[in-house]
């Protein structure tokens, strides 16, 4: 009797115990926090790059103040993006095998090349061509160690004549045009990996890659809005409200498309009503209630959309607009992180028997823990800080970037 009572208390103290029937190998989740961080980071890369390309290719001049910052942000996040995967692998040195003996039938293996293409050909080349004139000038002006760094970065191409710069401009534009489909490919692939797992009804959907791309654009624009506001604050510069309004507008439009697509996916699943619908409905109403209904849909989509509409099209003073934009952008980050959480964790919570649900408990310490994830999420900001020191993305001589009186 004592045993029964104790077992009852144990079970009560742990209300999130697995329920229904699950297979033995489904008890523990194999893809955890780090696999959530990975698509979140690559999404930010793709989003930031697509934002930069709006200025370059589509000539959205209002975005000029964030163009270079977006490129550097994309690079900073791109450098860190593979680290969660390498940490999760346990044998990071084996990642080289993917390049040496690639398996053409494996989407994951082929992605190594997509990644290399995006990092080396698209991002590095675009940044190099865009900064070349400045790098040559800095190489001539700076003193000491940095002089040699800039000299090395010119790669010997020191001609900054008008014609030469015109060529830089032309080729930079061409790279951006190639870069847009590449950015789509980069994040579309991450969605493809999930969407092509046909045995998993939560993942298996052709819409997933497209939803991933649009959520990437949403997260990238929101991130640039935050970074632009924070860097302006620390640099004691006035925020260009034209640029901020444009960012907010684009964020809103991207969110409407993203939310519409996700809603379409939802309706489609409901209408199809495959045999998995009952367990998925149970999962959404129990395990994913907070992260999906509250965090992703309510706090991460609806509230920021309303805030953006009110702030962008309402008659408010600039300060109020800035606060609303900032809060909306932060909420969007929470929402997109929740989206990644719901995809990665949601797909592993229900049994393939469609008769039971398991639980996911986050570790605090260790390679797959909360602290490691926080470190990996903050690391790109550290890289970005270094990049902005080496390649300052803002022109402080520009009279438009007025200094705030301290």
């Amino acid at each position: 009797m004592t045993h029964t009572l104790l077992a009852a208390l144990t079970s009560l103290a742990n209300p999130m115990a697995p329920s229904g029937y699950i297979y033995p190998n489904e008890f523990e989740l194999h893809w955890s926090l780090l696999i959530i961080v990975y698509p979140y980071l690559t999404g930010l890369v793709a989003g930031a790059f697509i934002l930069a390309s709006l200025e370059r290719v589509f000539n959205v001049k209002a975005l000029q103040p964030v163009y270079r910052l977006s490129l550097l942000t994309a690079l900073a996040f791109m450098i860190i993006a593979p680290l969660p995967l390498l940490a999760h692998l346990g044998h990071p040195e084996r990642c080289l095998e993917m390049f040496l003996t690639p398996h053409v039938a494996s989407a994951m293996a082929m992605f190594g090349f997509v990644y290399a293409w995006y990092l080396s050909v698209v991002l590095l080349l675009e940044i190099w061509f865009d900064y070349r004139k400045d790098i040559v000038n800095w190489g001539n002006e700076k003193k000491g160690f940095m002089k040699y760094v800039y000299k090395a970065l010119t790669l010997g191409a020191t001609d900054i004549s008008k014609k030469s710069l015109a060529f830089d401009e032309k080729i930079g534009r061409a790279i951006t045009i190639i870069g847009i489909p590449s950015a789509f490919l980069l994040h579309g692939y991450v969605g493809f990996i999930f969407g092509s797992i046909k045995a998993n009804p939560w993942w298996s959907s052709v819409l997933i890659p497209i939803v991933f791309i649009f959520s990437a654009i949403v997260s990238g624009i929101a991130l640039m809005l935050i970074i632009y506001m924070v860097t302006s604050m620390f640099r004691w510069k006035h925020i260009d409200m034209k640029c901020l309004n444009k960012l907010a507008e684009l964020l809103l439009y991207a969110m409407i498309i993203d939310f519409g697509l996700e809603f379409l996916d939802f309706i489609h699943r409901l209408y199809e009503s495959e045999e998995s619908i009952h367990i998925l409905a149970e999962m959404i109403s129990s395990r994913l209630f907070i992260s999906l209904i509250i965090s992703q849909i309510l706090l991460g989509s609806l509230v920021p959309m309303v805030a953006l509409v009110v702030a962008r099209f309402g008659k408010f003073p600039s300060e109020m607009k800035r606060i609303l934009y900032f809060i909306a952008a932060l909420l969007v980050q929470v929402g997109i992180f929740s989206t990644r959480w719901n995809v990665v964790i949601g797909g592993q919570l229900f049994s393939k028997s469609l008769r039971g649900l398991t639980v996911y408990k986050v570790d605090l310490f260790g390679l797959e823990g909360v602290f490691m994830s926080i470190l990996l999420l903050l690391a790109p900001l550290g890289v970005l800080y270094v990049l902005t020191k080496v390649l300052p993305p803002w022109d402080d001589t520009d009279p438009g970037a007025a200094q705030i009186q301290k």
Partner: protein
Amino acid sequence: MFRPLHQLVPLTIIFAIAVTAFVVGRMYLVPETFGEYGHYRADAVGEVASQEIAYAGYQVCYDCHDDIYDEKMESNHSGVSCEVCHGPAAAHTEAPDEVTPDIPHGRSDCVLCHGYNPSRPSGFPQILPELHNTGKPCMVCHNPHAPVLDHAPTECSACHRKISSQKMVSHHALLECSQCHTVAEGHRTNPASVRADKPESKDVCGSCHDKGAESSRGIPRVDVETHNARYLCWDCHYPHQPEVVR
């Protein structure tokens, strides 16, 4: 002075160096026999085959330990090979006096199979290690070669832990299992061949839940005859957790 396309020269050189390094690197780093049979190193097959054999197989144990072997084959552990618990024993069969296999004395090995896990089948003996005779090595009560005790389990939860856990937090918590199941004595000692009886008609539920039943007033009532007449009660209500309607 404008030098046409001069920016592309260093980039082309870097690109060429990178591609050459990749091609040359592949020549040295990809194993020679890679891809001979499939997408792996063909030499690996021979290497694995030439590894020293660590496991002897349970048949060899019989040559010396026939008494234990016979005892085990009669028990519920008949399907568990000797080396599952005692570890690889090839070296022991070569030199029985010099190398002795492990004998697990603690509690950690047994719970690998018998610790409660919701995904294990109902009826498989499972315990909550933190509650089941804490601190006592399993071998004190259970002979690993014939683990079933000489007396039958007194509680159903000894084997049906999951059902018991569900029932104890449901409205049926206070019901004895025997309220609905007739359990033949042989089921406790030989559950695989003597099955516990399960209710077949709605009368079992009706004895408490029918509107005319003589039971406590707080119990939910329906007219068992007409309430979803085409279905049995457990088609919708899981009896061990009746609050959950399927």
